[in-house]
Each structure stands twice: as structure tokens, then as C-alpha cells.
């Protein structure tokens, strides 16, 4: 199989937010301007037709990263390069976490689904396409006239997916699309997403904190911690042999049905505030392998022999 050019490539992407106190307060307390780097020097690439997952706990910058890729926010450093299969522009659509906020409550869902369709499309064609899309996502065409509140959470996510498809998207940003859903519904939505990818050759950027779901969906994944990507690589490799201490800790602490671990008392720690990031490796205060250099010098993401990349001083190879 010929190696296709990546659909998305993100290079040294960074986004800082100004969190300074109001001017008068700074003046009085003599405090300097402060900024938070929500996303810091992140690079990765997504091949067409694959799923790239970004995993991390709350506050790790995955939402900011999504917005940057979607173009809803502009980076302070680096760039997001998008190139379609034919070299043309990449159409991006998004499926959100919250099934309530992702649809305008005052619009019939048919109208919401039709919104991304090209402006020159006539009404009849739109209606037909909406009906077709509703069927694609497992709803009935008659549902187009209903309002969002008449649907359950899982159905609303299907509608959101239908809307994304209406935009003829090449790239779907899936921002925790199932975390608000019950497991039985989650399975349906995940299966649907996989089917669509197979049928339509879609590319997914999948954001989640749920490792099991990621394992099911992802071809590649990147682990983020406090705005930085600490490990990145093919999903099978990472799940099989996580190398970064954070990845390992994450996988170890997630409760797993198949793996009851009844006798472990994890170390107590809290994720540091992004306002107050430790120097060097941001994970070093929690890291069991932390060395002197970790507290001083930031580890850069480097290639490993097994095809993954890692940002850690302590891990060899």
C-alpha cells in the first residue's frame, strides 16, 4: 500500500492565553503579565482514513488542540497544515461531547443537519440529503421535523454525526463523542463511527480520556500531559508497551473490568495548576523515575526504534 501524504500535520503548535490580573491590580501588586501555555510545542500527523486519538486528563490541552485544528482558534506558535487527498482544502466537521449543546434547541433537526450543505443546493435536494443522512446514522427520515429535545442523548449524537457528514467532511473531530452516553449507547455510536470510516474513508481526530474507547477506535494515539505531548505512536504498540511513566501510570490506574486490581493504593497526587507549571519535565513531580535532569531540562519528543515517539529523559531507546 502506497503511503499517502498526511491529511493533517501539526507542527510545533502552541497556544498561550493571557491570564494576567486586570491592569490596575497588576499595577498595585507589582505582578507581571502572566500567560498559560495550554498547548505547547505539539507535533503530529494524521493519515487519511485513519483515526488519531489524543488522550489526557482534564486540563491537558486536548480541547484547545481540537479548536486549533478546527480553526476555531488560532495558534500563537507553529501551524496546522491540512491537505486534502487531491491537494485541495480539507473540510472539517466536528462531533461534540455534550449532546445537548451541540444542536440548536430552537431548530428542527433537519435544519441543523442541512446547515453545512452548500448554499447553492436547492430545498428539495437538501431534504432528500437530510433524509438519506438520517438513515445513514440509523434514524428515520421523518425525524427531520422534530426538535432536539425529542431525542435521547445517543440519538442526538447520531444527528450531530449526520450534520458532520452533510458537510462532506474529510476530517471529523470527535471531541469525547461518547463520554456523556451510557455504555450501551456508546457501543452503538462507536460502531457507527467505525462503519462510517470504513464506508466513507473518513479521517478521525478522536479526543478522549477513556483509554478503552481509544483502544477500540484509534490507529495512532498521542498522550498529552499539561499541554505537551509526552508519547505518541501506533495504538497497538503503545497499548502493548507503554513507555512514558505517565502513560504507564494512566493505564495502570484506569479501572478495567477485565483486570480487577483489588489491592493497589495509588500514590496521592494532583495535577499541578497550569498557572504554576514545574520547570523541566512537567511530569517530574509525580514521576517515579524522575532524575535530577528531569527537574531542570525539558525532554523533547524523540523517535524510538519501535516507531513511537517519547518525551522522557528516563526511558531508554
Amino acid at each position, binding site marked *: 500500500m502506497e503511503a499517502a501524504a498526511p491529511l493533517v500535520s501539526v507542527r510545533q503548535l502552541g497556544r498561550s492565553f493571557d491570564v494576567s*490580573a*486586570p491592569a*490596575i*491590580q497588576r499595577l*498595585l*501588586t507589582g505582578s507581571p503579565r502572566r500567560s498559560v501555555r495550554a498547548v505547547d510545542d505539539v507535533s503530529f500527523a494524521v493519515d487519511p482514513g485513519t483515526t488519531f486519538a489524543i488522550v489526557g486528563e482534564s486540563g491537558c490541552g486536548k480541547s484547545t488542540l481540537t479548536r486549533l485544528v478546527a480553526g476555531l482558534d488560532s495558534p500563537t506558535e507553529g501551524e496546522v497544515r491540512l491537505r486534502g487527498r487531491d491537494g485541495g482544502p480539507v473540510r472539517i466537521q466536528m462531533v461534540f461531547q455534550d449532546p445537548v449543546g451541540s444542536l440548536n434547541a430552537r431548530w428542527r433537526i433537519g435544519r441543523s443537519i442541512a446547515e453545512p450543505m452548500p448554499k447553492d443546493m436547492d430545498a428539495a435536494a437538501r431534504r432528500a440529503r437530510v433524509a438519506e443522512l438520517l438513515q445513514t446514522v440509523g434514524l428515520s427520515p421523518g425525524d427531520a421535523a422534530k426538535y432536539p429535545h425529542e431525542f435521547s442523548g445517543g440519538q442526538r449524537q447520531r444527528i450531530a454525526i449526520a450534520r458532520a457528514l452533510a458537510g462532506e467532511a474529510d476530517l471529523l473531530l470527535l471531541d469525547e463523542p461518547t463520554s456523556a452516553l451510557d455504555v450501551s449507547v456508546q457501543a452503538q455510536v462507536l460502531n457507527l463511527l467505525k462503519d462510517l470510516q470504513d464506508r466513507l474513508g473518513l479521517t478521525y481526530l478522536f479526543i478522549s480520556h477513556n483509554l478503552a474507547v481509544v483502544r477500540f477506535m484509534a490507529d495512532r494515539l498521542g498522550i498529552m500531559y499539561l499541554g505537551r505531548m509526552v508519547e505518541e505512536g501506533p495504538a497497538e504498540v503503545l497499548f502493548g508497551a507503554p513507555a512514558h511513566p505517565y502513560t504507564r501510570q494512566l493505564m495502570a490506574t484506569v479501572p478495567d473490568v477485565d483486570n480487577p486490581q483489588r489491592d493497589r493504593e495509588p500514590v496521592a497526587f494532583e495535577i499541578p495548576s497550569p498557572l504554576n507549571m514545574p520547570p523541566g519535565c512537567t511530569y517530574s513531580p509525580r514521576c517515579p523515575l524522575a532524575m535530577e535532569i528531569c527537574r531542570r531540562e525539558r525532554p523533547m519528543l524523540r523517535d524510538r526504534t519501535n516507531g513511537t515517539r517519547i518525551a522522557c529523559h528516563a526511558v531508554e531507546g
Partner: protein
Amino acid sequence: MIAIVLRRLGSVLLVMLVVAALSFLIFNFLGDPVNNILGVNATLEEREALRRALGLDQPTWVQFWHFLERAVVGDFGISYRNRQPVMDLILSRMPATVELVLCATVLALAVGVPMGVYCALRPRGVLSRVLQMVSLIGISIPQFLLGMLLILVFSVELRWLSAFGRGEVVEIGWWSTGLLTDSGRKALIMPVLTLAVFQISMIMRLVQGEMQEVLRADFIKFARARGLPDRAVNLRHALRNSLLPVVTVVGLQIGALIAFAIVCEAVFQWPGLGLLILQAIEYADFPVMAAYLALVGFGFAMINLTVDMIYLFIDPRMRRK
């Protein structure tokens, strides 16, 4: 925390500046001091001379600066109507209004808060429904109508209470109070009641609404789950948390009371600021209007500042930010 205080002071300053500008506009441009001093028959030369003497030939911003300088020391000129320094007039009228407003506030809080708490705790009770209906009437009945009815019943028919004025007042320094005499206290009853009915209803509805909201909060459910007695849950936790927004609104309501006092004073001939400003408007007495605006604006700003400070005091979350 100091930063918050300073920021509030900053916004107070902003409010005062805007108010002062408005007040200056009224003072200098709506009322023509020259015309009012010289009358319509004065010659052009006389006018020009006075204009220079009063500094009206200077650029507007210089005039505004002088206006501010004078305003800060309380010099708002002479009332067209009373021929007295405006500030003296206002100071002599202030105690009456302040007493009226304070009594009404105290009454409104003393009655409104418990009623609101009761209705929040027993929203479906018969008494609650009655109170809610009464409070709806309370915010729907115009004060002047209520005042008229009170006068009709208690002054004219029953002859129990005074229909006008403050009764006997006692002067303590420059302050005059009606609270120290029987007739003064009696004279307060109807105006205070008239003024307070709306506020009682407002505060009751507000406390009820806020408290019902708070009662649905998780920490109340958790407080109950902790097995705290109802009293503790309702008063120590629910009421305290509901009072936060109430404090803000009560601050605004004191402002509203000063405004509504105008109506009340007109009906009961209460010799306060409201009556003064009504007469000033009727007589186009612009210096009084300007000073009233500035003073009331200052009063409101101070009330808001106090509210913010109270907020800071009772809400720990505010203190750290």
C-alpha cells in the same frame, strides 16, 4: 482583596464622574445662571460682565473642572427658588428622607426575609400561597394609591395617625430626628408602611426565589444527608447562601427606596429630599436638580460600594480572587 476594593473605588469614581458630568450639564446648560440672576431685562453689558464674573466665558472643560472643585466641597450654588445655598437645603432635608428610607428598609428586611424563607420552605402551604398572592399585590399596587387609602382610613376616618409631615422632631447637631418623640414615631408609621410594602414584597419574592434555588443545590442535599437538623440546613446553609444575591438587591432597593420616597413624600408631605426635588423640577430650579443628582448618585455609589464590601466580607470566594 485590596485590589478589589480599589477596583470598586475606581468604578465608583467612574460613576461619580458621569454623574458629575450630567449634573454639570443640568447646572450649566439647562439652567442659565445669568438669566436667573439678572432677570430678562438686564442689558447685554451686564450679562457679559456677570458671565465673566461667573467664569462662563471659559472653555467648557475649565468650567467643568471648576464645577467639580466646587462640588467636592459641597458648593452647588444658590437655589433659584429658595435663594439659599443648595447644599444647606439638601442637608436640612436629608435627615427626613434618610430616616424614612432606613425605617422602610429595616421593616422590609425584618418582614420580607422571614416571609421569603417561610414561602421557600413551604412553597405549597396555604399560608405561603396567601403570602405569595399578597406579595404580588404588593408589587402591583402603586404607592400613591396605597398612601391615599391609608390617609383616608387612618387619618380621616379613624383619626389615628397624622396625614402629613414628620410630627415633632428633635435636633441633634445638624441632624433632625423624629424617632425620639411620640408624634414623630407616629408620623413615620404610614409613610414607612407605604414605602415598605413594595420592598417587603420584593424582598420576600427575592428571598423565596433565591432560597428555593439554593435548596435545590447539592450542598443542601448533602447537608441533609449529613443528618443536620432542618433548622441548621435551612438557616445556616440555605438562608446564608440565598442572602448573597439578596444583599446586592437590597443595596439596589435602598436606591429604589430613595426614588420611591419622592412619591411617598409627595403624598404624605414628608419634608425630605423627594419633596425638594419635586418642587425643584416644577420650578425648573436647576442648581437643586444638579446637586440632588450628584448627591443621590454619590449616595448610590456608596451604597453599592458598601454592598460590595459586605459581599467581600461574607463570601470567602471573593476574597481570594
